[in-house]
């Protein structure tokens, strides 16, 4: 009993000293609680469907940020990883009869392989040239999908895939849980030594190489990691939708990921995730005005990017939080002194 009280006290102390003190952390906790209790407040199948898909696309958007935001490897063909994950999971499930818990990770491993395959020829390229080259890969794969219709289902795709579970609530919790777990892993990676090297490669690759770091290895690692997480998203999508079709490889899918990430704020992980949670339900909400739905969506994007060029969430965070010039700890913007080192905040 005393042990429980001890841990409860510790939890309260952490919440008081580490969470309540920063609005961004409060938002994360509220967000977590919202996702956790959503099925308690609504059993509406449509709402749960929207949020399940939102969670899946949040993983995809964060995986793009890991590669392009942090490492600077501008990938305009991210649908490749998503599509490979979706198709592989679907084929493994349908032909090898492996259930979703096996087919999704295996599909993600195939996406890792795809990451290696495109990573190696792209290592010599930078900037626009890299972006254009990566853009070509999903188009090439789509050509292969159409060239082997007996295997890939051609234009129809592969349908009749097993569901993850038969319960919409369970599907939702699986997607939400995986989203939280995988995005935390991605965030931890970017916060680790590897993440620092990813950052450094983006800022000055020559300097990193001059420091004796094998940048090739790290860039390939970024492609593979990003491919893995996007592959998981693809596999989840295929099993949720019960179809893996050419639409998963379409150019529009690649650009949608870039739009989400840029809207939320690149090189943050939380930015693209937050952006998907705003933009995907927003597009559904705009169904009440069908004719102008896409136009209104575009207007929202333009307004946000015009006034917040670094993305919505970094802008919001900068408004409500201030970084201490001395110890670099973040404080709520209403404070005049740092909560840790008491240095004066400007």
């Amino acid at each position: 009993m005393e042990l429980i009280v001890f841990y409860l006290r510790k939890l309260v102390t952490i919440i008081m000293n580490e969470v309540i003190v920063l609005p961004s952390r409060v938002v994360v906790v509220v967000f977590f609680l919202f996702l956790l209790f959503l099925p308690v407040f609504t059993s509406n199948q449509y709402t749960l469907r929207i949020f399940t898909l939102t969670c899946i696309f949040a993983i995809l958007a964060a995986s793009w940020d890991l590669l392009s935001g942090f490492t600077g490897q501008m990938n305009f063909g991210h649908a490749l990883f998503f599509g490979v994950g979706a198709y592989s999971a679907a084929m493994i499930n349908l032909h090898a009869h492996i259930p979703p818990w096996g087919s999704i990770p295996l599909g993600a491993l195939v996406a890792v392989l795809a990451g290696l395959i495109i990573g190696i020829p792209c290592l010599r390229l930078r900037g626009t040239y890299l972006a254009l080259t990566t853009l070509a890969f999903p188009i090439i794969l789509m050509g292969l999908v159409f060239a082997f219709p007996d295997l890939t289902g051609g234009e129809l795709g592969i349908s009749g895939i097993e569901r993850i579970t038969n319960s919409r609530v369970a599907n939702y919790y699986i997607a939400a849980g995986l989203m939280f777990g995988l995005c935390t892993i991605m965030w931890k990676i970017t916060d680790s030594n590897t993440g620092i090297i990813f950052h450094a490669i983006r800022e000055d690759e020559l300097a990193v190489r001059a420091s004796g770091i094998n940048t090739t290895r790290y860039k390939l690692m970024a492609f593979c990691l990003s491919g893995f997480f996007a592959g998981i998203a693809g596999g989840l999508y295929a099993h949720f939708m019960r179809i893996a079709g050419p639409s998963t490889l379409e150019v529009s899918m690649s650009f949608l990921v870039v739009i989400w990430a840029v809207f939320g704020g690149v090189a943050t992980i939380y930015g693209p995730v937050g952006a998907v949670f705003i933009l995907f339900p927003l597009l559904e909400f705009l169904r009440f005005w069908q004719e102008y739905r896409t136009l209104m969506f575009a207007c929202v994007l333009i307004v946000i990017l015009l006034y917040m060029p670094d993305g919505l969430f970094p802008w919001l965070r900068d408004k409500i939080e201030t970084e201490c010039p001395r110890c670099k700890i973040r404080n709520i913007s209403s404070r005049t002194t740092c909560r840790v080192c008491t240095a004066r905040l400007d």
Partner: protein
Amino acid sequence: MKKPVVSIIIAVVVIVAAAVIYYATRPPEAAATIKIGVIGPMQYVQGIGHWNGATMAADEINAAGGIQVGDKKMKIELVQADSNEFINITDATNAMERLITNDKVDFIVGGFRTEAVLPMQDIAMENKKIFIGVGAAHDELCLRVAKDYDTYKYFFRGSPFNSSYLGRTSFIHLGTVAAILKNTLNIENIKVAIAAEKAIWTEPMIKASEGVIPKMGMELAGVWRPSPVATDVTAELSAIQRSGAHIIFTIFSSSVGIPFARQAGELKIPAVQVGINVEAQKDGFWQATQQMGNYVSTLNTYCRGVEYNELTKPFVDGYVERFGETPTYTADTYTAIKYALKPTIEKAGTLDADTLVAILENASYMAPSGKVEYLKDENGNHMHELKWGPGNITALGVQWQDGELKGFWPNKWKAVPEAPEVTYKGIVPYKIPPWVIEAYKK
């Protein structure tokens, strides 16, 4: 100055979030009407056809007092859902889920792109809602019914008949035109050029054509594949002319159908066009080709002046009067509501899906496009697939003749030698372009 901005943004985000949750979870209104969801790409001509056909059916039924369900009359309420399926498959499935879950529709009609209709079909079946597919032609949609009847029995094909029959009908048109050329111009060995747009859906048709054309006693002159969005096809047309082709078997669904017809007319290519040219099905084709599309023929569902039966004329004329254009096959949402759902509900006296399925799958009813009956597979399993052939649904062969689209097939058509001849009212003889007659007249 900065803090009010932040407050405003936070307030807006909170209001939008609350509105989204309210909008998504609001309770349904009490059911006093029969709700029919009309789903399709509403920003495109196909979706507009879905909606127009459905509104026409609903208005006619409601004007007559509604549908008799047991001892009460219920009016129809249509719910439009833009599937956006040409651009986003996820959007299409969300629209379907929304129709069923939030709008609480009783039935669904529509759908167009097969890749979207397959997952849409899954959602409707999970919710045990009768979904009449009007637009997607792929066989798989109905093969699923036969394979897993208990799950997919709520799906019925509304229009068009499946892609295998579409191909078969096009080959019959090809044979008909070839026979006319042979008889009129005394051409011994008819050469056929295949002109198919560079799109994946044309691949199986090209493959089938390469096999079927020689078996039909004609020579294959070659296959040409212009881009679906090509604006200049003179190179292909010149090559076709050099190949000595007498017939160009077209397989076009995209805008290339317009420049192909226009430039063939301008260059007076001595070959007739037959097959599928979706652009040539539209009323605007004559203007778009600057009158050069004369004598172009295509497969079509409806044509002004041609009557499959006594129901065709009121539908086509009514549609033209109301919407200013000839109905396309996606407007067969009209048939799905007026001739499939209404009589079935009235016969059953209930909206219970299982009861309605049992009645509808065995039904035989007349519709503006012909007599509708549903097929069973070789094992006797229900497929809910449209029956094709004389006496049932056949579609039409239509040809542009001096600014008007005229029906030329079926004209004394016999499916098998012992079968009765089929000719629909309003069918006119096929016309060979004068420059083709001049080129081959002996």
